[in-house]
């Protein structure tokens, strides 16, 4: 049993009363350890259940022991001092209840008697707790939960260290070198996720993981049937084999144990099934868990830098982290010595990296920010409920005072209030958990695309424990704030005031209000900055005409490319048909469309061989490309049908390219070498002796709206080297809005696709919308949270001010009777709400200035201390506060002195 579990159990035992804990604590802990150890022999799940059952038992028994009506525990052994002739009466019939149970019953009765207060308080807290629990369960599933591997603490990623960042993947020859030379790893593996057609008839695709042969030992899983891959399987030329996933085995092969030796066809290649993966196999590094595993057969060509591979490794048992670091450094040095030709100035060392660092990365920031935001909302909810409890406390001041006068100690009264808080917290916890269930679905639904490990998000003991802790904290928190006056012992004052309506607790209530205002400001500023980010991004000029532009992938004809005369022929025919459509103004094919992934490639300036760049955006396009996109030709000429295979290679470059390499001179006629980096072509066939720049085009934000236009070269599709050719995408410019172009394009493409999969026709507006999906998610969620905070604060202000009006009826009546005008009364009442709110506002702005830097990573085009946002937020809060206090003010100015001064 881990020390953590042991400690957890010791903590849980604190629930028990002290005497029994002292007497039996060790025995209980020992017995618990034995129970867990036995359960562990059966399975991990049994052990987890045993741990949960043991902890629950300790907590439940603790509650029972403390509530149980009984004589004090006697700790001495052999302690039955009772007269055996007179068996004791059953304790449950004892007339007097012990303290806490009494308090709870009393509080419960009180809550039931004022259902409106109870409902409001529970709903407020439940919203806060629900939001928190929902966020926590996402954070737990995505960030905190260990990976689904055997002994996950021994599994580590190995990545290139770029100081600030990590690069997940390394060239194949490095992977091979490392796995051969390092001594601290038991096994090391790399993989690639692809999807392959697994059934020719239905076209059903399977998620395939191509893995190096030690993959399963790294994740610590063994096939439930058959064998793992061997080194021999991982060599090209050996027979084609596959391991199939548990689900696929059950669904397609009916769980038949005779499946070994049968074959499964992937992309037309039959593979022999050699094993079945266990049901618990899971690999969160990839979006889909593999239905099928096949050997990767990596060829470590030292000159192939194009494809890169991630590394996952299992550490040998009991290796110190420092030893691993030293070993990685040693192998790094050995590599540099063995392959000086492959090492340049930028030779980065390999370091251990966690899954969270590499895969969860940016999501983590968002999650923690949202988590903090929901925490703040909970603070406000708490403050509101505390204010409610306080107000109720004062309206019951008389009752309390009488109780105190009758001999209830301050402690007793405070305890009663705390018990009330706990009951509210408990009820809110249940409702909050239900809300959280809905909230989690909502969050996952709203999150754009790719939340890592979303599948493992859900209710589990950790989440429930968190909810209970949140409820306990908020419950006692509210209770304690509300109990302050009772603790201060204002009993005599309350008795006196009960007759006239006092202001005794006003100070505390106003403090609560100031806190709410301050917290709201922080949230509102956060939300404001995220909304401003979204607005800024949407204002960016993408460099092409978004309206009326459609994009789709070229569909594969149902008979395959070859039977239709090749990709080029299909492209030509489809373009012809598209251009003939009346709704279409222009159409073109290209290697990709903006904001979609495309190739980037090294480029060297031919006349200056020392001027080269590793990653220039590369696009190959058909005729009419510029017209279709609405990109303008700034200088020179565009492609003509004469620029085709066999004629001298030509290219267009964008203005960013010219600015970097030909500032102040004409780029037209200059020659570049596409594919050449540091004197070497990364693929020999790319060496065409240089390409002439014939024109300059305007910049397009190809990668993302938030990324400045990248340097780009555009070549005619006919001259694109075979190595870079792939089925193109189509871009279509429609003639006028709402011309039905999308439907017409769909008809043409459906015709080509036949029975095969139909590509999605998307409008560029949608594409741009998707590209800011993450920012929209951040802004939306923060805005919701800030809105809830603002609403709760408004309720709080209204409550405090209207309460103040009720309490000061007489005073106001006297003032009016003495000649105070409406303005004076309004100022008096408004001040009650506005003064603390403005104070809180000031504090909140200072706080926000300090806190918004945590948002920096999520902002774009806005400073974390953006004055516009801050001023807007301040005005907004002040306006809401004024509105919330206006209603009670109206009530106050209508007070008729005749009524309020009449004796009670």
């Amino acid at each position, binding site marked *: 049993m881990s020390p953590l579990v042991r400690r957890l159990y010791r903590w849980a*035992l604190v629930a*028990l009363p002290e005497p*029994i804990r002292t*007497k*039996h604590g060790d*025995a*209980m*802990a*020992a*017995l*618990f350890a*034995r*129970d867990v150890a036995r359960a562990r022999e059966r399975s991990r799940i049994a052990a987890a259940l045993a741990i949960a*059952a*043991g902890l629950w*038992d*300790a907590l*439940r*028994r*603790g509650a*029972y*022991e403390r509530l*149980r009506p*009984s*004589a004090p*525990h*006697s700790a001495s*052994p*052999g*302690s*039955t001092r*009772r007269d*055996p002739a007179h*068996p*004791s009466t059953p*304790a449950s019939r004892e007339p007097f209840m012990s303290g806490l149970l009494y308090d709870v019953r009393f509080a419960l009765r009180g809550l039931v008697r004022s259902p409106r207060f109870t409902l409001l308080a529970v709903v407020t807290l439940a919203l806060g707790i629900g939001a928190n629990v929902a966020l926590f369960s996402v954070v737990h599933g995505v960030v905190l939960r260990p990976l689904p591997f055997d002994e996950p603490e021994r599994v580590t990623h190995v990545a290139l260290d770029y100081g600030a960042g990590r690069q997940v993947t390394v060239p194949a020859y490095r992977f091979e070198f490392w796995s051969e030379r390092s001594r601290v790893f038991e096994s090391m593996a790399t993989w690639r996720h692809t999807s392959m057609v697994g059934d020719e008839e239905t076209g059903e695709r399977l998620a395939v993981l191509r893995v190096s042969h030690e993959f399963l030992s790294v994740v610590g899983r063994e096939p439930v049937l058959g064998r793992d891959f061997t080194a021999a399987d991982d060599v090209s030329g050996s027979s084609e084999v596959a391991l199939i996933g548990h689900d696929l085995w059950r669904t397609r092969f009916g769980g038949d144990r005779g499946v070994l030796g049968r074959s499964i066809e992937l992309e037309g290649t039959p593979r022999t099934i050699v094993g079945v993966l266990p049901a618990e196999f899971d690999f969160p590094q990839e979006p889909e868990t593999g239905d099928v595993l096949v050997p990767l057969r990596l060829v470590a060509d030292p000159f192939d830098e194009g494809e890169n591979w991630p590394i996952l490794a299992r550490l040998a048992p009991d290796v110190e982290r420092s030893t691993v670091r030293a070993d990685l450094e040693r192998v790094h040095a050995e590599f540099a010595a063995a392959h000086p030709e492959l090492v340049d100035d930028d030779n980065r060392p390999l370091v251990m990296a966690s899954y969270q660092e590499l895969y969860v990365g940016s999501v983590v920031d968002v999650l923690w920010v949202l988590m903090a935001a929901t925490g703040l909302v909970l603070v406000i909810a708490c403050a509101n409920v505390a204010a409610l409890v306080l107000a109720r406390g004062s309206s019951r001041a008389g009752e309390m005072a009488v109780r105190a006068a009758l001999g209830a100690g301050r402690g007793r009264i405070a305890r009663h209030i705390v018990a009330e808080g706990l009951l509210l917290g408990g009820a809110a916890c249940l409702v909050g958990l239900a809300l959280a269930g809905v909230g989690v679905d909502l969050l996952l639904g709203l999150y754009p695309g790719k939340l890592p490990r979303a599948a493992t998000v859900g209710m589990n003991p950790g989440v429930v424990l968190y909810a209970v802790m949140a409820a306990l904290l908020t419950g006692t928190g509210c209770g304690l704030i509300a109990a302050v006056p009772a603790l201060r012992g204002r009993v005599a004052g309350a008795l006196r005031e009960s007759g006239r309506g006092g202001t005794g607790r006003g100070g505390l209530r106003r403090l609560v209000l100031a806190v709410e205002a301050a917290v709201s400001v922080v949230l509102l500023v956060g939300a404001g900055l995220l909304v401003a980010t979204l607005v800024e991004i949407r204002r960016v000029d993408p460099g092409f005409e978004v309206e009326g532009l459609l994009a789709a992938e070229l569909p594969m004809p149902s008979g395959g490319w070859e039977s239709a005369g090749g990709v080029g022929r299909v492209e030509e025919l489809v373009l012809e048909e598209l251009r003939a459509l009346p709704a279409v103004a222009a159409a073109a094919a290209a290697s990709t469309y903006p904001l979609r992934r495309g190739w980037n490639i090294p480029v060297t300036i031919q006349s200056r061989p020392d001027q080269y760049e590793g990653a220039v955006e590369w696009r190959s396009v058909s005729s009419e490309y510029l017209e279709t996109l609405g990109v303008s030709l700034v200088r020179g000429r565009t492609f003509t049908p004469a620029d085709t295979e066999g004629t001298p290679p030509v290219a267009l470059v964008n203005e960013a390219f010219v600015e970097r390499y030909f500032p102040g001179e004409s780029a037209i006629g200059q020659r570049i070498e596409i594919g050449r980096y540091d004197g070497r072509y990364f693929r020999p066939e790319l060496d065409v002796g240089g390409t002439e720049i014939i024109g300059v085009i305007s910049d397009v934000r190809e990668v993302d709206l938030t990324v400045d236009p990248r340097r780009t070269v555009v070549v005619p599709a006919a001259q694109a080297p075979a190595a870079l050719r792939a089925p193109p995408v189509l871009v279509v410019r429609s003639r006028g809005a709402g011309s039905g172009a999308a439907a017409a394009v769909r008809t043409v493409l459906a015709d080509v696709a036949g029975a095969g999969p139909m590509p999605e026709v998307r409008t560029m507006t949608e594409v741009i919308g998707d590209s800011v999906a993450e920012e929209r998610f951040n802004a939306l969620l923060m805005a919701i949270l800030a809105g809830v905070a603002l609403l709760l604060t408004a309720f709080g202000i209204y409550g405090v001010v209207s309460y103040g009006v009720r309490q000061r009826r007489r005073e106001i009546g006297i003032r009016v009777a003495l000649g105070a005008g409406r303005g004076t009364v309004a100022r008096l009442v408004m001040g009650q709400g506005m003064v603390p709110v403005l104070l809180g506002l000031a504090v909140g702005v200072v706080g926000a200035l300090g806190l918004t830097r945590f948002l920096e990573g999520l902002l774009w085009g806005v400073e974390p201390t953006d004055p516009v946002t801050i001023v807007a937020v301040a005005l907004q809060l002040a306006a809401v506060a004024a509105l919330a206090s206006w209603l009670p003010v109206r009530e106050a100015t209508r007070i008729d002195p005749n009524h309020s001064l009449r004796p009670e």
Partner: protein
Amino acid sequence: MKKPWFFILLSLASRDRYGSDIQEDVRTLSDGDVRLWPATLYGSLEELVERGWIRELDGAEAPADGASRSRWYAIQPEGREALRSEVERSDAVNRVARRRLGRERA
């Protein structure tokens, strides 16, 4: 009678035992149905001691075998009496149940 009490008394009715021994015995007695988790076990033992139904053996009385550091418990006449009346009560219920079921079958 509460389930843990019943089974603890039942277990101690055969001989004096210590904590984990009781837990084990109860599990066997109930066919694995009743698991006394530590806090419930020791809490119930304290309750039963308080009621005078069982007592804790003094150090000198405890058998000096392997589990010497454990606390040993012995059932008291009141405990036996309580167990007996519980068994009789449930016997009565069982008789009624059997009769009614029998009538149903007929």
